[in-house]
């Protein structure tokens, strides 16, 4: 039995070569991750998947105040109940409030490349300024309502006959009057 110094030195050289290659990869990885993050930070702009951490901020140039939404269901038993959508669609955690706001503002009609259905709707009404607010909200509300009803036993008085999204506004100045009703969207189920 013998040991092989030549083989050992060959192995060492291969390992060193592999480590040098990894070192180069680490440099590329670090620059590839941090360079876009720094650029995004400089321009304060999110370009997915590059994030700028502009969290817990109020835009000083934006008008104060906020429109907010309450999702409600009208049951076949005649009650009106609050239904938090997180219980219906956990996958949208942390984003539902924004999704409702963007849909109310018709944001999906203001893209460079429109969904063909949205383009068709725009052509029918004659432009985004003629579109009613929340043109796609009834579809979204109906999805929530359907999911809610699927979880109720057939014949339950808790089943919904309609789902509603009520919009309110807070002026963002006075810390007392929070509920100025603005408008409502409703979808029959």
């Amino acid at each position, binding site marked *: 039995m013998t040991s092989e110094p030549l083989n050992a030195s060959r192995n060492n050289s291969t390992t060193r070569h592999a480590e040098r290659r990894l070192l180069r990869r680490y440099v590329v990885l*670090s620059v590839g991750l941090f360079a876009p993050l720094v650029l995004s930070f400089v321009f304060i702009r999110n370009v997915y998947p590059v994030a700028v951490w502009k969290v817990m901020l109020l835009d000083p140039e934006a008008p104060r105040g906020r429109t907010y939404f309450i999702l409600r269901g009208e049951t076949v038993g005649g009650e009106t109940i609050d239904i938090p959508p997180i219980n219906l669609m956990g996958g*949208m955690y942390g984003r539902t409030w924004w999704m409702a706001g963007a849909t109310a503002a018709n944001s999906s009609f203001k893209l460079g490349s429109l969904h063909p259905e949205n383009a068709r709707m725009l052509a029918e009404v004659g432009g985004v300024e003629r579109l009613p607010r929340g043109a796609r909200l009834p579809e979204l509300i109906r999805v929530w309502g359907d999911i809610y009803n699927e979880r109720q036993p057939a014949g339950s008085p808790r089943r919904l006959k309609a789902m509603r999204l009520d919009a309110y506004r807070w002026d963002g100045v006075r810390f007392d009057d929070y509920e100025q009703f603005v408008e409502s969207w409703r979808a029959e189920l």
Partner: protein
Amino acid sequence: MSRLVPASATALGMIRAGVCGVFLLTVLATSFQNLGRLPVTILRPTGIMQLFSWGFYDRLVTPGGMSVLKYALAASLALSTVGYLTRLSTITSALLLIFYQGLLRSFGHFTHDEMAGVYFLIVLAATPCGDGFSVDSLARTRRRHAEGFVYGYPILLMQSLLAWGYFSSAVIKLRVMGAGYFNPDTLPTLAIIHSLDNLHDTHFRLAFLLPEASAYLPVAVGLIVVWEFAFPLAVVWRRARVWILSVGVLFHFSTLFLMNIFFPYTLAMYLVFIDWESVSNRLARVRPWRGLREWWRDFRGVPEEFDGVKIADTSLRESLLWDGDCGFCGAMVGRLQRLARRPFQERPSRTVEEKLPDEVRRAAREQMHWIDADGAVTGGSRALVELLDASGRKSVAALLDSPPCRPFAWLGYRLVARHRDKAARLAGQPRSNS
């Protein structure tokens, strides 16, 4: 490097398991079918998500399409978590997760919570994170790289990415709002905005108490900004780490109760600051874990490769050495002879013991050994592969030695070798030749 971060393959592997495991659990708990019912017409593809066509989104955002995405994500993340086919599975996990998170942000908005985790997956996909604490590493008796920079740097990079998030957040607050950020009304306004609706995930009402405490809030906000600025210290100063991370936990739970905003993924990603190998070593002192660890060390301890060892006696070359006292082993050698296209020499290892180096002799009762034409020695599943290759069964050998099969060949061999009695009973063979 090791003064800043644990720089071993096991430490990096444990972090891989943790990061992928967090995403795996949440993917499994999420109803993708319900997500698939959202109207595609409200989608606003963000960033790279604009590269995909509307036709693609029409087909994807359906209950069936989203279920396919869920199964693909769950399978890939499960493989990455256990470290099986790690080089491939970490890449697919990173790509699929980037896509999935982009899709969620295209419906909602650019939440930052999961972003650190997404970047961690990118880091893991580009590093040898399967070299330790993985199914892939089961059959490997040697590390591919020396412990140190190769395994430590990815951990340092992940810590730095998390620190960047907090640090840049503090700078941006001051860039955008300046001294106005410390206005007594800023925090109550932010908190109340997020407490008015029922579309947030929680509905705590503590925000409405904040205006009464507005005199103290500039100080509280100032301390938070200082903490965010100081977060990079957690990377470079181990002593400060516990304090900075503890404040982080407190901060995120405060935002939950005061603002109905929670960053659970970001909190979970603090796991990159924990020395899991050291935690595991401490756990190993506790009774049930100690026994388990000793069993594992013993199970895994039989070497299959013997670096630098060569058998000088040429008469032993290209021969199989096996435990001559084991009837089951003899029967298996007989089967291998019948399977072989080219016959090979075989002999009980006891008969040539004096010609074997110590390390091979010690393992001779635990496994078979193959001595190749150059005198190099391999044992166990490695010996089986070499034997099949040398005896003309090259395709079977290549299959057993392929990355998907290698860990299972090793595990199968070890289990059978360790429980030869039971295996003999199952195969209807005698355990002993005597």
